[in-house]
């Protein structure tokens, strides 16, 4: 083998060098030209940035409101950045650690006790006490979630609750009477059984089983309806290991394991489309899902009750908060003014009508208003009036996410038939007590 001689490089030096130079110029100018991308963290005290996760109709309605505010408040600039709600906390945590928080951020209510620990979160307790704010006009569930240990850390952004959405056609086909406002959980279970038809892969109901908070809060609604509590009143011990806990868990178990009337969705993504395809008779879900059911004649009914308990037709609500961060006194003032305007009755009414989201103020939910909502999104006003069935909120403690995980594991293991309700409740309660003890 001799020495190989290469022909000239196919690139040839001059064209390649020119190419590289051109690209370097592009690169540098790209870096330089990006002054437009710095966001509103600079730009004066009347310029605030809000991180929100509105999509579709909500995004349009929100943009309209922002424009209206800027038009009526000259000199104020509100720039909004879309951040998918699931990721907002991560982004906020990183931003706070880096000294770059937004002025306002939309944060899930379930994060509230931990959000309260973030440095820079503005305390709004005195702000919301102003008469013009009319704090008590907000639903009690919202106020509970915006307050951590007596400190108000947010203004309500969204409210919802759980009720039963059912497929009228499937009920008719099975010759079943439609759910009435006085119905009970045993009736729900019986209906689910009758609506199940394995031959055509039709299920009476569904449940999400990823073990996350979605799994947990559905069960907590039943626990409360059965007259039970999650924790004791001082949030020091588990209280769900009780008759009510057993009754509620057994209800779910009957459907999942005995009757096989419950479609188990481990991924939280299929159940809604299944309902829309007419394969599920009843769903326990919230108002956000209604727009995803264009192919079904659905009806909405309040949650059933457990006979012989004082739980009534209780339901659970999952409000979210606008949280204000401290970027200097004048920006805080601008942010507070904006958020109070945004959550004032007139804007709440506009937003709800445009989006189908429930009104976050009680005074807005009049009969006339509810009729208007129903015209746009059938039966959504049942959810609005159902807000009156929200009597309590989940424990507002920092360890709730861990507690939720223990409960989630318990519910899933019962639904999958891996454990019996009694021992599962006991085991979960022991774990929860451990968690509560550990936090001191």
């Amino acid at each position, binding site marked *: *083998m001799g020495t*190989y*001689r*290469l*022909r000239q*490089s*196919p*690139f040839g*030096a001059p064209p390649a060098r020119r190419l*590289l130079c051109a*690209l*370097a110029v*592009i*690169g540098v100018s*790209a*870096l*330089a*030209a*990006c*002054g437009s*991308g*710095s*966001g*509103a*963290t600079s730009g004066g005290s009347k310029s605030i*940035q809000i991180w929100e*996760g*509105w*999509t*579709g109709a*909500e*995004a349009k309605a929100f943009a309209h409101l922002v424009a209206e505010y800027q038009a009526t408040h000259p000199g104020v600039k509100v*720039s909004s*950045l*879309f951040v*998918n*709600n699931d*990721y907002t906390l*991560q*982004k906020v945590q*990183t*931003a706070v*650690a*880096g*000294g*770059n928080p937004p002025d306002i951020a939309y944060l*899930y209510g379930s994060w509230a006790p931990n959000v309260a620990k973030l440095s820079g979160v503005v305390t709004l307790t005195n702000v919301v006490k102003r008469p013009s704010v009319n704090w008590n006009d907000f639903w009690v569930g919202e106020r509970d979630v915006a307050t951590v240990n007596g400190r108000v850390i947010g203004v309500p952004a969204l409210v919802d609750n759980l009720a039963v959405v059912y497929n009228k056609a499937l009920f008719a086909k099975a010759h079943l009477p439609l759910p009435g406002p006085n119905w009970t959980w045993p009736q729900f279970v019986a209906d689910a059984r009758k609506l199940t038809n394995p031959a055509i892969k039709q299920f009476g109901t569904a449940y999400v089983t990823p073990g996350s908070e979605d799994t947990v809060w559905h069960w907590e609604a039943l626990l409360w309806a059965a007259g039970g509590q999650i924790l004791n009143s001082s949030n020091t011990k588990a209280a769900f290991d009780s008759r009510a806990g057993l009754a509620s868990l057994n209800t779910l178990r009957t459907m999942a394991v005995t009757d096989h009337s419950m479609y188990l969705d481990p991924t939280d993504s*299929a159940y*809604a*489309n299944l309902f*829309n*395809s007419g*394969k599920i008779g009843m769903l326990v879900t*919230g108002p956000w*899902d209604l*727009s*995803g*059911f*264009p*192919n079904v004649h659905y009806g909405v009914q309040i949650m059933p009750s457990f006979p012989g308990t004082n739980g009534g037709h209780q339901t659970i609500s999952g409000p979210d908060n606008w949280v204000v961060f401290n970027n200097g006194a004048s920006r805080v003032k601008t942010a507070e003014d904006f958020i109070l305007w945004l959550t004032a009755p007139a804007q709440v009414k506009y937003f709800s009508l445009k989006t189908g989201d429930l009104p976050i103020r009680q005074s807005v939910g009049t009969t006339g208003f509810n009729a208007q909502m129903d015209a746009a999104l059938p039966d959504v006003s049942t959810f609005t009036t159902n807000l009156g069935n929200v009597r309590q909120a989940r424990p507002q403690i920092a360890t709730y996410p861990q507690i939720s995980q223990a409960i989630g594991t318990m519910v899933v293991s019962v639904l999958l038939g891996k454990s019996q309700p009694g021992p599962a409740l006991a085991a979960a309660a022991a774990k929860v007590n451990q968690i509560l003890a550990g936090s001191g």
Partner: protein
Amino acid sequence: MTVVPEAREMSTAGAVSGVRARTTMVRPRRRLPFSPWHLVLIPATIVLLFPFVWLIVTSIETPAEALRFPPDLTPHVIRLQNYPDALAAAPFGRFFLNSAVVAVTTVICNLVLCAAAGYAFARFRFLGRTALFIVMMATLMVPFQVTMIPQFIITKWLGVHLLAGAGIGHIGALIVPNAATAFGVFFLRQFFRTLPIEYEEAALVDGANRLAVLWRVVLPLSAPALATLAALTFLDSWNNFLWPLIAINSTAASTLPLGLATFQGAHSTEWTLLMAGNVMSLAPMMVVFLIAQRYFVRSVAATGLTGI
């Protein structure tokens, strides 16, 4: 017995079928009018492309038909309007531009920096070579969830003290941290080690310096690897979501994945628009790959090595 190579056509465009060396003893006579490998590749391709079928079908459906489970791949109504709707929902032109600038610049930086470093690791012996390589590989072994906050703080510091365009909120922040990756260095090092060293030695003997050896001898031989790295780096940059989510604070500097996320609410997703956006986002990546494919074969021919 002699080998009689048939005329080899090097172009892949307008591929010539069935050209291969003919030896009388080994190859069986063909029974089918096409290569039997198609019988393997077609089912395999169906499996590979199946999710794309779903993607494309969803992108041209009406929302009512998209919200079905199980998904029905035969829509009754075709709605091409989803594409203009998706483009109008957010400033996608801007997102495309930002993504393109970031991806192209990242690819170029990676090719340059990783080729230099990869070559050094492959051919040079310098003090601390092994230790440095281990440290580089180590950066691949810690998940991003853990490093993202320190990376954010470092990027912010860089933007404040060194180069404003590379700080938080600017698209430079998306380029600089990824301008060289341990993956690229590792990949090219492995590739350079497979090249016969004789070419480089010959060039050195002829008086070329190391840079010229790299530029004129090694890189031309490495076009398949460079093209592969370019395609992979482009892909990574184009699809990167979490770091841009954290580092970018304005719509004007957002990239395509962030733009697509605007179709995903916490509780409800606009599937048809999201899939239309996904399809449009795929197009540049496929174009990049199709271009890169040509370099796989072209370079081998250009260097005069007998090859495929």
